[in-house]
């Protein structure tokens, strides 16, 4: 227990000092936003066992809403982000409501198609700026007190939000709601026979995941100063699945590690190998699915448990 606390503190210190160690704050913030996105996605995939293929819709649409509110209506950052989140939650309710009617593969395909629908809406809708996207989005002043123009100041804000989201997800998973969700994941028929309205639970999980994905997207648009079609594209949905799978579904740190790895790979691998990045990411994906299904953190957990002889088998295979 003490070891865990010490490690937490060290990690916090490290996170806080990163900008001063010469790391590029904008890169770090992008990483944190995608880590948030992956954690929100994991809530659905890892703990709820629902594979959504169109999650970029929530990430990207919230980004557009936030950017639009700031540029066209001069909204403050807090208001804009909260509105983005709210819209993402609403969108999640609609898409989730439709998708939950089916399970497993059908669920995945429906989310895929509806995610694509959101993409095309964003392409055509006048407020999104189509192919050009919304550009030059200023970060503004937080609550009228704290100017966010400095990359370092913005970094601490994003870090704070990330930690809050991370702890919130932990809380949700350990709550009674989280327990029921995991019960549904393990054995749906049993959960129904116990009297739980599983559709309500699934929908709530979906909406929560959508809202937090929206939060990540809104923050990301403020960090980078724009919202574009890349945010709602199918490839972004694929990326978040990869991050979660690679890091370890059903774990807490898994998505964070996965996001860090994928974003870093994309940023620096592309300098080395140019356009082969996509193909290489595909190879990693396939390797993961074939033999590395627990992901990095999942495998580490299994290793650790085996070493301490605390269980005959590792943790139950997620998803």
């Amino acid at each position, binding site marked *: 227990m003490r*070891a*865990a606390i010490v*490690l*937490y503190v*060290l*990690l916090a210190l*490290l996170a806080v000092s*990163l900008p001063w*160690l*010469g*790391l*590029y704050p*904008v*890169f*770090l913030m992008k*990483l944190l936003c995608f880590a948030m996105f992956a954690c929100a996605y994991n809530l659905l995939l890892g703990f709820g066992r629902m594979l959504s293929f169109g999650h970029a819709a929530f990430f990207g649409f919230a980004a557009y809403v936030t950017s639009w509110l700031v540029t066209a209506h001069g909204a403050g950052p807090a208001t804009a982000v909260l509105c983005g989140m709210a819209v993402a939650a609403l969108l999640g309710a609609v898409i989730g409501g439709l998708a939950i009617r089916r399970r497993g593969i059908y669920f995945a395909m429906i989310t895929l198609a509806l995610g694509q629908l959101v993409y095309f809406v964003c*392409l055509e809708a006048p407020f999104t700026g*189509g*192919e*050009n*996207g919304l*550009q*030059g989005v200023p970060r503004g002043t937080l609550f009228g007190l704290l100017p966010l123009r400095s*990359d370092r100041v913005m970094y601490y804000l994003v870090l704070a939000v990330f930690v809050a989201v991370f702890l919130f997800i*932990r809380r949700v*998973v350990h709550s009674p709601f989280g327990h029921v969700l995991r019960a549904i994941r393990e054995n749906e028929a049993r959960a129904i026979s116990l009297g739980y309205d599983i559709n309500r639970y699934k929908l709530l999980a979906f909406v929560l995941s959508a809202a937090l994905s929206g939060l990540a997207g809104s923050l990301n648009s403020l960090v*980078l*100063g*724009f919202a*574009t*079609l*890349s*945010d709602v594209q199918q490839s972004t949905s694929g990326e978040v699945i990869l991050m979660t799978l690679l890091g370890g579904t*059903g*774990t*807490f*740190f898994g998505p*964070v*590690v996965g996001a*860090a*790895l994928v974003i*870093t790979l994309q*940023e*620096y691998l592309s300098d080395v190998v140019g*356009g082969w990045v996509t193909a290489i990411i595909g190879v990693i994906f396939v390797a993961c699915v074939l033999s590395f299904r627990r992901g*990095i*953190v999942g495998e*580490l*957990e299994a*290793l*650790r448990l085996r070493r301490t002889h605390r269980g005959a088998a590792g943790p139950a295979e997620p998803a």
Partner: protein
Amino acid sequence: MTLSRWTIALGAATLMAASPHAARAADSVVIGDIDDMSGVYADVEGAAGAEVINMAIADFGGTVLGRKITVLTADHQNKPDIGASKFREWADQQGLNLLLGGSNTGVNIAMAKVAAAKKVPFIVIGAGGASLTNEDCTAYSVHYVYDTTALANGTATAMVNAGNKTWFYLTADYAFGTQLQNAASKVVETRGGKNLGAVRVPLGAADFSSFLLQAQASGAQVLGLANAGTDFSNSLKAANEFGVTRTMKPAALLAFITDIHSLGLKTAQGLYLTTAWYWDLNDETRAFAKRFFAKVNRQPTMDQAGVYSAVLTYLKAVKAAGTTDSDKVMAQLKKDKINDMFTQGGYIRADGAMIHDMYVMQVKTPQESKYPWDYYRVVRKMSGAEAFGPITGLCPLAPK
């Protein structure tokens, strides 16, 4: 879900390993080029354009103010977010002194905003949208080679004067296409023609058939192609395939010599187009073209020639100003006159537009063409003032 020590260590290690290098020491002058290297516009400037930068640096002498010159290139893949992010990263981390903007107006508008925020001189070569010197102007942007106003003033005027009065547009659905369509529409209307409508086509569309049907149904005399690059050549080919060109005359609102080359004179003959530069204009242009051809096996487009001139102009300005300080260099750039193989008597206006002569050309018939790449016949030369028009007042830096 207990915490794993390894995870934290791994996470931290990843982040540390991921650390981008700290800002490069400011001893070399850094020139960046962000362009479409693999997509719809890859042949207009692309990787060959990057070669040209090196040519210009070598011709200048290799160093400026005693400092080495470094060149960075990146592919924006026609995505504004990639272009803007790369520009910002170079400005923050690599000590960027000059950015050359490649094709795609949407991406360049995004990059212009970064130029203003980071105060880095930004010379737009490949993009056409005139808004870059109007609503989207900044104190650090220069629009060097051509813009949608000049294109419309050249091509649309020539066609309307030849009796083609009713127009229907096939427009690439982003900033460039829209601005080009608007500019052409204005010219058509001013000269007594009529605009019958337009259809918006996604950038890089694979199949133009249904859009062409709509164009044909309009009954217009002219099919205004408000697009460029492979979009232009493919829409023209499809128009032939579907018999649209039997009843409508195509207007090549933006065409490069590489497009004419890929279409072939049989398909492209008779087209009017407007260009800032042509390889076969005079001895100086031919000399540059010969060097380019030796490296790349194609004749240079006006954009590639523009890159050469822009880099030289910048380096000359840095030398004259005695510093790479952005404000001083921008002031110097707006004072200098540009006289090189690209243009004579060019100058940069308060709104950032580089005013220079433009040429209205007509594509030769296969019989008229006497040697490879002998594609254009000069119809007339437009002075810079006529081509780019007066200051509109939409840019706060250049009030009416």
